[in-house]
């Protein structure tokens, strides 16, 4: 009974999607040669996808609605697995040892190309963890995060070009400039509600990019800045391979440092204030938390990491131009945080690795990358707003006191 009803609904949805996608998926006009290309195969594909998509989507949604009333203890989730591993000391030590072994041997076992991909992924891990402070913990939807990344990258490139400042000096400078821009953006938007904030930060990201593109005298416009030196190591001359491995380990170090800091912040007085702010702004203020200060620290700290990420990115690629800092970068980083799990460190790290590495290794599908990211954002919000590995709150043990 119900099944046939469901099939009927799904068929209807399939027909609807076939209608909906007809002009864009089926017809393609070649305006130069004036030929119309009819791609009926696409319509069939849409129909099939629409049928199964609608069927599965609705059954998942029903399950979720049921699940909200009564949590299902039988679901085997990645989160439970992670918790089991981190909860058990022997297992967690073993897992850590395996990961450490892999991380250390990676650059020696794989090609230069692979190491480079891994470095990119690690930069995204760092950016994801930084944005996680702003979006995941403080609940402020920042769509201009890439601006701080750009600021860091250009800070290093320009400081090096004009004053010959080296990587290791530029790294903290990038962090400070990032934080400064974070406050610069944060201050005017303090009073704004979440949705306005999203648009303003998006606008801010575009402003920075457009300035870099148009202000030739300052940033050399769209042609960008080349010959940015790689990080130095006590003035040694390094081959490209050596230097790449060096950046790899440097990135591992930075990621560990980021995890350490974010983890400590998350369970501190400041971290709790961020989460309270995310959960209920008014109650948060009424409980004695300074909203402005809390928001600004979140913005500034998030931007600090983007600034450092930018410096490393510039040093890694040795060439930057505004095209690397479009709104899409911000959306990718947001996607990492959302998929992984807002507020969850393990989640964000895995989210970054999955979203950056997978498209690299599935080259055939890489053109669908942004499309899939869009789907991920919607689907995660509907079915799993907590991400694949949701944040788990710290618990405390107390002795029962005798009365």
């Amino acid at each position: 009974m119900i099944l046939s009803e469901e099939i009927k609904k799904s068929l209807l949805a399939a027909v609807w999607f076939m209608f909906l996608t007809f002009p864009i998926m089926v017809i393609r006009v070649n305006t130069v040669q004036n030929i119309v290309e009819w791609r009926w195969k696409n319509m069939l594909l849409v129909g099939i996808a629409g049928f199964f998509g609608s069927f599965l989507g609705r059954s998942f949604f029903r399950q979720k609605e049921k699940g909200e009333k009564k949590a299902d203890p039988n679901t085997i989730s990645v989160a439970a697995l992670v918790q089991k591993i981190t909860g058990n000391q022997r297992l967690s030590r073993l897992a850590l040892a395996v990961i450490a072994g892999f991380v250390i041997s990676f650059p020696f076992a794989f090609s230069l190309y692979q190491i480079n991909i891994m470095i990119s992924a690690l930069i995204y891990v760092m950016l994801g963890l930084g944005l996680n402070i702003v979006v995941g913990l403080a609940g402020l939807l920042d769509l201009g995060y890439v601006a701080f990344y750009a600021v860091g990258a250009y800070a290093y490139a320009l400081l090096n070009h004009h004053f010959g400042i080296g990587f290791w000096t530029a790294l903290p400078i990038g962090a400070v400039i990032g934080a400064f821009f974070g406050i610069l953006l944060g201050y005017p938007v303090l009073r704004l509600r979440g949705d306005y904030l999203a648009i303003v930060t998006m606008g801010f990201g575009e402003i920075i990019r457009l300035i870099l593109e148009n202000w030739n005298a300052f940033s050399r416009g769209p042609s960008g800045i080349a010959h940015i030196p790689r990080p130095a190591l006590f003035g040694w001359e390094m081959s490209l391979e050596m230097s790449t491995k060096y950046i790899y380990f440097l990135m591992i170090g930075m990621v560990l440092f980021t995890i350490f800091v974010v983890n400590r912040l998350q369970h501190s007085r400041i971290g709790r204030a961020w989460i309270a702010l995310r959960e209920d702004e008014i109650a948060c203020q009424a409980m004695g938390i300074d909203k402005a200060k809390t928001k600004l620290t979140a913005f500034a700290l998030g931007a600090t990491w983007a600034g450092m990420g930018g410096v490393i990115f510039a040093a890694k690629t040795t060439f930057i131009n505004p095209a690397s800092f479009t709104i899409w970068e911000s959306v990718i980083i947001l996607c990492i945080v959302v998929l992984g799990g807002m507020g969850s460190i393990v989640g964000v790290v895995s989210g970054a690795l999955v979203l950056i590495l997978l498209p690299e290794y599935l080259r055939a599908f890489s053109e669908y990358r942004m499309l899939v990211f869009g789907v991920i954002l919607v689907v995660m919000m509907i079915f799993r707003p907590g991400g694949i590995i949701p944040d788990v709150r710290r618990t405390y043990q107390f002795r029962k006191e005798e009365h």
Partner: protein
Amino acid sequence: MEPILAVKNLSMNFGGLRALDRLDLDVNQGEIVALIGPNGAGKTTFFNCITGIYTPTEGDILITPPRNSVQRINGLKPNTITELGMARTFQNIRLFPKMTVLENVMIGRHCRLSAGILGAVFQGKKVRKEEERAVTDSYAVLEKIGLAQFVNDLAMNLPYGAQRRLEIARALATEPFLLLLDEPAAGMNPQETQELNELIVRIRDTEKISILLIEHDMKLVMSLSDRIFVMDYGKKIAQGAPREIKSNPVVIKAYLGEEFHA
């Protein structure tokens, strides 16, 4: 002795609507004062004004915290007012749903702690001590309120009555001298209400915290309060001891058509 809270001539306009009209109210040290009135009389607006969520159009809000001099708090930010020692609860429960019960209370401790970003990262001895203290203090508050069994549960998973009490616990953790309760008994059954009654008296007696509450449950109001203020259409229409209020014809008229069983 100065009243710890003295509101004088307080008015609040929303556009053309006058939600509060030259209201006077005061609370003395150690008192339990109730603010009653029909729905829409402006009671919650009054709370929002004195806790800094709204800035009143006219009038003065003066507080005299213990061991401190008189201070005008109009237009201060909510967090500053909480820091000065007035903490509130909300009519429609506003907990932090995805934080644990303990963390909810620890948020209340926030303004009494001092660790900053660097402190949180380096976790020096002082910060660790402070954090440990915050945990034990918060737990102590939970024990006092009778929520210790839920300590590690998420606030959103708490039963309704417990959520209401957690709001009180959270407010208490800010170490107020005056606690403002907005309909604390709303939605509670008679037994829970009775327990709440005892809790409020206990807070006043053992913690030496004065209490101002908005409440519709007249039985609770009459048995708890030392004094009662009655509002209607943004104005104060009566004030006095419970017995006077019960027989005040103006009050009865205002409530006509509403349930009023005393």
